[in-house]
């Protein structure tokens, strides 16, 4: 069965026309993603550090590891990749297919991918950062924890990523939006920043989302909540009033506005 799957996979090289539902450019490259040589078992934290340094943050793989690494497992769980990015104030959204991966790379965003570099029976789990690709050369480029860039044929990358269930993570500062996520994904990621008490980052993300989706009251509602959590009552009231203008019927908006106004009055 395994051998059959292997042969079948070998027989079909990656065909962009067949695998993608949009016309992706022949090549794309994200500039300025640093190569960080990972410490033992730190591919997860190193990946996040690379992406955050690319965005301008001053974060080391040790900083990330303290929030993400599980020493007992000798690795980093998917959930901790997401959680640590959020605890560092980043917008983290998951992706799950080639469409999203190449959409992000074309939007100029590096993408963390979860791969099994071994086989199903002998897994070698690994996180790498996809920084570019070239269909003509049949190559996909990764910063993969060594000092050199890793170059993989699409078919090989496809197999290693498929064994990781096509899991990928876009980690961005909260003033930028992923190209492949919908409004609900970004809203949930923003609310998750509130949950880990990253209220300043949540506030920025709600403002970013409000600019992208100006007709949706939920962004102003979240903005009001994030400002309230930081003690900015006047800012919270401004946002909640805007939410009420966008949809006067929402009880939650009225309740929170009344709450903030009561505190301002008292």
């Amino acid at each position: 069965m395994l051998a059959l799957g292997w042969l079948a996979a070998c027989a079909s090289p990656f065909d962009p026309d067949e695998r993608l539902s949009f016309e992706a450019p022949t090549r794309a490259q994200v500039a300025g993603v640093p190569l960080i040589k990972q410490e033992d078992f730190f591919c997860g934290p190193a990946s996040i550090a690379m992406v955050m340094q690319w965005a301008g943050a001053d974060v080391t793989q040790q900083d990330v590891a303290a929030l993400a690494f599980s020493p007992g497992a000798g690795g980093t769980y998917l959930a901790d990749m997401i959680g640590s990015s959020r605890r560092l104030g980043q917008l983290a959204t998951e992706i799950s297919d080639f469409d999203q991966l190449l959409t992000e790379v074309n939007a100029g965003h590096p993408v963390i991918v979860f791969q099994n570099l071994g086989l199903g029976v002998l897994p070698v789990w690994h996180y790498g950062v996809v920084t570019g690709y070239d269909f003509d050369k049949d190559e996909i480029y990764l910063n993969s924890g060594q000092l050199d860039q890793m170059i993989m044929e699409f078919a090989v990358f496809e197999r290693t990523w498929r064994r990781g269930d096509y899991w990928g993570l876009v980690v961005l500062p909260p003033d930028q939006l992923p190209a492949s996520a919908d409004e609900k994904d970004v809203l949930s990621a923003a609310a998750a920043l509130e949950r880990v008490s990253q209220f300043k980052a949540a506030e920025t993300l709600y403002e970013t989302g409000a600019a992208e989706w100006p007709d949706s009251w939920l962004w102003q509602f979240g903005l009001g909540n994030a400002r309230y959590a930081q003690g900015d009552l006047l800012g919270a009231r401004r946002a909640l009033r805007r939410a009420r203008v966008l949809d006067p019927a929402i009880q939650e908006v009225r309740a929170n506005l009344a709450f903030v106004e009561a505190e301002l009055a008292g």
Partner: protein
Amino acid sequence: MGILNISKKSIAIVLSAQLILATQAVTMAQAEMVGTDAAINKYTALASRNALMDEMQRADVQAEIVALGIDPIEAEARLAALSDAEIATMLTQMENDSAGADIVGTLFTIFVILLVTDLLCFTRFFNFTRCVR
């Protein structure tokens, strides 16, 4: 006399309902702020449901449903009975089955019709649907 009784009763019910709502609103305002998470979950689920309901109202969908021998009102009632989680699951399955393409237009219409026929035991397209006949 009888009518008067009933109307008094219903006025009382309306009034007490208003009272409860008013009390709740006050408690809501006094206890703590409503979290963003809760609102997102509630209202984005609502949006998915509304999108399905809107699709059901389209003339071609209605015609298709009638052609299949299904009462549109019953179809709508079945759709309304789905939980938020079921609607989310179904939308995910739609996305997967359409192989990454955006679900728009015709494809979405077909899925909605399949959903209705599933619920009325004509088909068994979606994994979670249980027919109620």
